[in-house]
């Protein structure tokens, strides 16, 4: 039997989610997706990130390769122009045709441009696709002033983008208030005040009559009330219209004001054709958010997999940060329900507004509005969604924090309560996941995808997880080992606060027993990060892990490798020759590492001081390849030589490597600096990565290669040198303070409550008031840096240990090398036998 052919029209966010869900269901269908845009699906919700330095690739959700791996046939840049229902096929712009058994329309929507004379001017744009962004950026380059038409959710976000592009920004709204759909009058005027305070002009109640050539600027907007506004460019964000052209053409049922009519099964008036996402009209309503679209996609995929599933509408509550202002809207924000009661709290000084709408008897929450402070959003949303009985005095929920503020513990929620609305993860799902053994935030995220969308649910997810673990008596023992009833973070604070200088002192005051190979290196690293004493000092030497123990990396046969620092990967021919000469003299295997430097293998313990003496004499210093410490800062050649480079990436890499060399941390730290967005230094795979821009540097954090690769997150854009370094200082020190032992920045960030936003608030906004202390600590480390090998060679007491035998000058006779490709390598067991026999 032939496979069923399932054709998806539109490869936006919802179309992509549909593919992903259907592929996961492992039906044996031939799946074909046809997209109008030239590229595979991307994250439209975070489109504006492109203005703060994200590249379009960072937004990608699907890729040609991914679809190929999934066995999905994909066509891009070729819209479907016709559905032939009788023949059950679709025809594309290129003339190609494609037959279907089931057709899924996921064509989304398009921006509404009011039919104002002059709105077709080439300086009038829209804001929906990556291509739109390119056009906006290009126009902004020769503009001083920009106007956004539309004061709704998208309009304000677009306003933010224009401001980021450095334009004098105005928002023009037809209605009397901003965000009229989500906010009531009080919330709306509070928001207006906040936005005006940011220097954005807000013009409400303005009906644009015409757009004509301007005097001071390129354009002039003329309003019905006689007023006018000069601007160089206009972005229309006055609402969306469902993309239902194909439905019209194929004579499917379409709503009065547009939208492809669907039923509970997401079927259109033709039962072989489904519609999902923003093009679909359900119950007379278009759902202009991504989560409801995802639900529709899942409903259709389930049916195609032979299950029953129904779409039953979706909640439209939203929480956003618009122009840096927190805004939340839940349910019936306007209090339109019959005999609803309203409770309003408004604080002009703190510029925050909160309103509750409850049932007439005050027991059920019907809606809420929050502006300026969204900290109550999660709690209120749960009251609303799960119809939980409100406390006797509902207003207490929105009054400023008092000690006895009733907080809705996650424990009170039913198992069906949605915790993550982006990925439709319920409390029950999380509990299931804990039952099957997940014990960390990172694991739960991996297993359920919860909190990997907008991130708004992270705090609640964390609380739930902690509650569940406690409830199960899985007192997740976070003690580092049997010798200390403390986490690494706690030990760090004990050492810092108590000014403890040695492991023995810490053990005496806060631990028991004698220590082990877990706590000793962890404490050694804490001591080093705080006081920076030599790791081989008498009281620290017994604490050091395998490689720190002899300032070199132990290999399988007990010999060592030697890695001198080559900051930024830049090396003079003379120094390069020294490495060659030393390697030849001591017969060391020589290899270029993945970190842009050179590793010399096969050094015996007793040879290490001799080798290092020669290297130090030639001006090398230790590369800390052995330490949980800064490793390398990779560079690309940058603006000095490369025709594309926009900044001197080599100089910056060297500066950073020399600044942080010797810094001990919970795990190794790597970095990279690229001279332009081509990213030849792979900075986005590093713990902190730096990429040059026309205006300075973009800083990325939390990247990782290795076992579980993670792309770094853009942390801040267009920084000057000094700000860049200040942020990195704070970031690294905050990581060192709060991470677990052997936790790279990637895992740390994934588990950090509040995620990257929280990290930004600590590092950039100094929300914990820690910044000065973190910088000071970093300054201490930098000012006390000394090459560990230099100090070791200068101290006979330390050198004593670099002997294979304390009672003999012989070397380890079990270390046997043989030659391969003109260099040495450890002999394998069978070769070793042969060699020994031959020797006899």
């Amino acid at each position: 039997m032939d496979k069923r052919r399932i054709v998806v029209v539109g490869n936006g966010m919802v179309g992509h989610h549909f593919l992903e869900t259907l592929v996961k269901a492992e039906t044996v269908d031939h799946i074909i997706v046809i997209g109008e845009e030239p590229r595979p699906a991307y994250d439209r919700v975070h489109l504006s990130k492109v203005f703060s330095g994200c590249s379009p690739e960072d937004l990608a959700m699907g890729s040609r390769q991914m679809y190929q791996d999934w066995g999905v046939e994909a066509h891009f840049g070729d819209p479907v122009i016709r559905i032939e229902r009788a023949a059950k096929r679709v025809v594309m712009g290129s003339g190609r045709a494609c037959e279907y058994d089931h057709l899924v329309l996921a064509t989304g929507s398009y921006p509404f441009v009011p039919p104002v004379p002059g709105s077709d001017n080439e300086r009038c744009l829209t804001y929906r696709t990556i291509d739109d962004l390119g056009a906006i950026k290009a126009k902004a380059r020769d503009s001083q002033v920009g106007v956004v038409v539309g004061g709704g959710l998208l309009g304000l976000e677009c306003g933010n983008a224009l401001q980021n592009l450095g334009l004098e920004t105005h928002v023009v709204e037809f209605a009397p208030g901003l965000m009229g759909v989500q906010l009531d009058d009080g919330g709306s005027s509070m928001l207006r005040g906040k936005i005006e305070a940011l220097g954005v002009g807000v013009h409400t109640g303005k009906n644009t009559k015409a757009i004509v050539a301007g005097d001071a600027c390129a354009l002039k907007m003329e309003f019905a009330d006689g007023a006018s506004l000069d601007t160089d460019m206009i972005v229309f964000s006055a609402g969306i219209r469902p993309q239902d052209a194909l439905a019209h053409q194929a004579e499917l049922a379409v709503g009065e004001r547009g939208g492809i009519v669907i039923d509970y099964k997401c079927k259109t008036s033709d039962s072989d054709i489904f519609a999902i996402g923003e093009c679909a009209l359900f119950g007379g309503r278009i759902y202009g958010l991504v989560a409801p679209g995802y639900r529709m996609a899942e409903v259709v995929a389930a049916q195609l997999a032979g299950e029953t599933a129904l779409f039953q509408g979706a909640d439209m509550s939203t929480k956003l940060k618009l122009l840096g202002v927190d805004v939340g809207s839940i349910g019936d924000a306007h209090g339109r329900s019959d005999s609803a009661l309203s409770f309003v709290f408004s604080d002009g000084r703190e510029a925050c507004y909160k309103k509750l709408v409850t049932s007439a008897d005050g027991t059920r929450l019907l809606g809420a509005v929050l502006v300026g402070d969204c900290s109550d959003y999660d709690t209120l949303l749960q009251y609303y969604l799960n119809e939980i009985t409100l406390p006797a005095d509902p207003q207490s929920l929105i009054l400023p924090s008092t000690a006895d503020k009733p907080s809705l513990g996650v424990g009170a929620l039913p198992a069906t309560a949605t915790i993550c609305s982006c990925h439709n993860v319920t409390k029950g799902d999380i509990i299931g996941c804990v039952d099957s053994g997940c014990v960390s935030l990172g694991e739960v995220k991996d297993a359920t995808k919860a909190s990997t969308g907008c991130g708004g649910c992270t705090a609640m997810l964390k609380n739930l997880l902690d509650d569940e673990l406690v409830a199960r008596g899985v007192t997740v023992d976070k003690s580092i080992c049997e010798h200390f009833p403390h986490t690494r973070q706690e030990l760090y604070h004990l050492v810092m606060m108590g000014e403890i200088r040695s492991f023995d002192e810490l053990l005496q005051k806060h631990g028991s027993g004698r220590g082990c190979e877990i706590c000793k290196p962890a404490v050694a690293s804490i001591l080093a990060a705080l006081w920076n004493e030599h790791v081989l000092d008498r009281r620290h030497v017994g604490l050091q892990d395998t490689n720190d123990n002899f300032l070199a990396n132990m290999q399988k046969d007990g010999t060592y490798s030697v890695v001198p620092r080559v900051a930024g990967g830049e090396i003079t021919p003379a120094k390069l020759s020294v490495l060659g000469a030393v390697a030849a003299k001591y017969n060391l295997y020589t290899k270029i590492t993945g970190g842009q430097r050179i590793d010399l293998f096969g050094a015996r313990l007793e040879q290490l001081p001799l080798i290092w003496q020669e290297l130090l004499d030639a001006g090398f210093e230790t590369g800390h390849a052995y330490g949980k410490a800064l490793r390398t800062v990779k560079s690309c050649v940058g603006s000095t030589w490369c025709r594309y480079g926009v900044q001197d990436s080599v100089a910056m890499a060297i500066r950073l490597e020399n600044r942080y060399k010797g810094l001990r941390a919970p795990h190794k730290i790597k970095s990279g600096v690229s001279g332009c967005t081509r990213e030849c230094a792979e900075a986005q795979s590093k713990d902190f990565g730096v990429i040059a821009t026309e205006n300075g540097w973009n800083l990325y954090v939390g990247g990782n290669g290795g076992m579980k690769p993670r792309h770094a997150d853009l942390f801040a854009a267009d920084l000057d040198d000094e700000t860049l370094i200040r942020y990195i200082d704070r970031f690294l020190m905050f990581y060192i303070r709060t991470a677990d032992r052997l936790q790279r920045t990637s895992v740390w960030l994934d588990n950090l409550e509040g995620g990257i936003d929280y990290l930004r608030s600590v590092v950039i906004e100094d929300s914990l008031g820690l910044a000065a202390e973190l910088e000071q600590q970093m300054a201490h480390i930098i000012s006390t840096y000394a090459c560990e090998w230099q100090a070791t060679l200068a101290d006979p007491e330390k050198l004593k240990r670099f002997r294979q035998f304390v009672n003999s000058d012989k070397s380890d006779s079990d270390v046997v090398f043989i030659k391969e490709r003109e260099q040495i390598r450890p002999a394998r067991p069978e070769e070793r036998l042969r060699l020994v026999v031959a020797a006899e």
Partner: protein
Amino acid sequence: MTALERSAWVTVCKRDDLVEGGGVCVLLGSEQVALFYLPAESCEIYALGNRDPIGKANVLSRGIVGDLAGQLVVASPLYKQHFSLESGTCLEDDSVHVPVYAVRLEGDSVSLGRP
């Protein structure tokens, strides 16, 4: 190598050659012996064969010493298995042992007996 008498003690090094809280290695004939110097413990010095039977390299003297549930151990620097300083048994796999040597500290001089 000629076998040493049971009662024969061989002086191998001075107290000063030892590293407090850690290990060093001495050569006893052609055998490599790891000496761990723990002045606070009842024996002060513990001696095990230096060869890690799991990692198959002569490195035990370079491991971290400590205790696990009260038992004194050294963790191999290669793959971190624990060996009891008193019995030489591997805590992760009790079919694996390293030899244990008798040690004596007289004045400043350290001597070893046969296992």
